[in-house]
């Protein structure tokens, strides 16, 4: 991937002409935006652990970047290094389509203008069956300081949530998700011990910058926005400044509220814990961290906490899609715009039983949102997950 500035990887293209005028026009719209280098690279491995799931039709599209993406070349000389990132399309095999509620998902995760990729995305359809209902897990993690806390969340959080949900009494989602996030935080904090015991083997397979220097990095953390989708509900747990937005009948409904240090209730919480929010290049906890909650960041405890805020939303027939994204998107694209873009992509594909078309529509939506963020000069990593929430069999005629 040498010589590449900024990338999106492995966008899914239809192998055969799937349809349709609307898809063609979408393609054209994609092409109008500043083109992005697209690289097939497994530096950030797509989540492939689910055996029924496989990656399909991964076509690599190559085009060149406008030179102005290299923003701080005047600051640092080694800035023109390769950038890479990944787009995954979680397609579904024939076996999986026997299930009536197989989710249609599109994800994009790109390094963008940043030097390092510190976002991670976690997609686990059918990660859990409860009361004979399929539950799906989606997560976006935006690391800071280094990538390893976000990576650890990607590797582990769905398993932790699964175990907690399995012992959950009735529908205590809030308590269960808070417990899960706290366990995740503990695992990240105990990383040091694991290292000494295991001799840097198991937990360190994704080697990152800081572990080579020192086994202990108190000053590393990650946001986590996680959604568990059941046939009836959407549970969103959020910690930090990534965000989940529901698109319902064309209206953007935020399902999480960003944890910023100057949010009045967070400011009070931090002050009551003995901390301070200082305006030092924006509002920051002790002048350092520009979010008030995160997984990790031991050095800022107890002011920065890993406890998520949890929302439980009943699904309705008017629900169109769910968008989870890191602040690389939300800093430059308002909720309403994001919903409008995703909706347009999904409507183009229709709400029929054509799972390929729906998958591609979600992938198109995720990619288009990412391109939009980059076109609007987002300076951060950009990660987007789009989940189609339309109820196919009951609701085919809706669009």
């Amino acid at each position, binding site marked *: 991937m040498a010589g590449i500035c900024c990338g999106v990887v492995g966008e899914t293209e239809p192998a055969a002409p799937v349809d349709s005028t609307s898809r063609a026009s979408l393609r054209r719209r994609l092409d109008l935006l500043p083109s992005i280098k697209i690289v097939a690279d497994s530096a950030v491995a797509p989540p492939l652990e689910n055996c029924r799931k496989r990656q399909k039709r991964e076509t690599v599209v190559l085009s060149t970047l406008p030179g102005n993406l290299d923003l*701080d070349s005047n*600051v*640092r000389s080694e800035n023109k290094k390769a950038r890479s990132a990944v787009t995954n399309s979680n397609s579904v095999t024939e076996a999986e389509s026997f299930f009536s509620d197989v989710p249609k998902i599109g994800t994009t995760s790109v390094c963008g203008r*940043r030097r*390092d990729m*510190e976002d991670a995305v976690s997609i686990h359809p059918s990660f859990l069956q409860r009361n004979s209902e399929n539950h799906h897990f989606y997560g976006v993690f935006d*690391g*800071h*300081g*280094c990538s390893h806390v976000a990576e650890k969340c990607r590797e582990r959080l769905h398993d932790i949530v699964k175990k907690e949900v399995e012992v959950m009494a009735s529908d205590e989602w809030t308590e269960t998700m808070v417990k899960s996030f706290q366990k995740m935080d503990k695992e990240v904090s105990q990383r040091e011990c694991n290292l*000494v015991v295991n001799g840097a083997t198991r937990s360190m397979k994704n080697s990152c*910058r*800081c572990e080579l*220097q*020192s*086994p*202990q*990095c*108190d*000053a*590393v953390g990650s946001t986590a926005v996680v959604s568990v989708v059941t046939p009836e509900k959407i549970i969103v747990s959020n910690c930090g400044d990534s965000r989940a937005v529901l698109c319902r009948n064309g209206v953007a409904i935020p399902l999480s509220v960003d944890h910023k240090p100057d949010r009045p209730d967070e400011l009070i919480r931090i002050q009551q814990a003995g901390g*301070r929010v*200082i*305006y*030092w*290049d*924006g509002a*920051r906890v*002790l*002048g*350092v*961290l*520009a979010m008030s909650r995160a997984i990790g960041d031991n*050095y800022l405890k107890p002011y920065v906490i890993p406890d998520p805020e949890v929302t439980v939303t009943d699904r309705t027939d008017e629900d169109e899609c769910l968008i989870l994204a890191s602040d690389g998107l939300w800093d430059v694209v308002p909720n309403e715009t994001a919903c409008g873009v995703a909706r347009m992509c999904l409507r183009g594909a229709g709400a029929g039983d054509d799972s390929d078309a729906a998958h591609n529509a979600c992938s198109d939506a995720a990619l288009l949102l990412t391109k939009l963020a980059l076109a609007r000069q987002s300076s951060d990593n950009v990660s987007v997950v789009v989940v189609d929430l339309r109820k196919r069999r009951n609701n085919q005629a809706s669009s």
Partner: protein
Amino acid sequence: MKTSQEQHVCGSTVVQTINAPLPLVWSILRRFDNPKTFKHFVKTCKLRSGDGGEGSVREVTVVSDLPASFSLERLDELDDESHVMVISIIGGDHRLVNYQSKTTVFVAAEEEKTVVVESYVVDVPEGNTEEETTLFADTIVGCNLRSLAKLSEKMMELT
């Protein structure tokens, strides 16, 4: 050090006791060319001039999402006998202007322990109070010294 008349200056001292002998602690701390070993906010460090001795200048880049991306720092003094190190920040895209720190390492009264004392002065940037400035700098310095302690103590365990 240049400080204009009306410019507000502040300073503070951070003290850290370490369960490791002085020679070990000093051997980590004195490496002006390699602060990454214990400073977690440092992503890369390159010497711009010098060989790591007095007068050397390093360019440090810092990890993501901090209110800075790089810093230029000069080693003003490095005394291996009295264990004193003085560093000035001479540039960077951050708000620590005219920052100078003096780090001194002592053998503690208790056996096999070391005390590290780091004092600094810095301009109070516009829009912030003295208290905010020292709280911010204390957070960074304190984090570095705690990390120096952990690393030294870990190295003790391993030997």
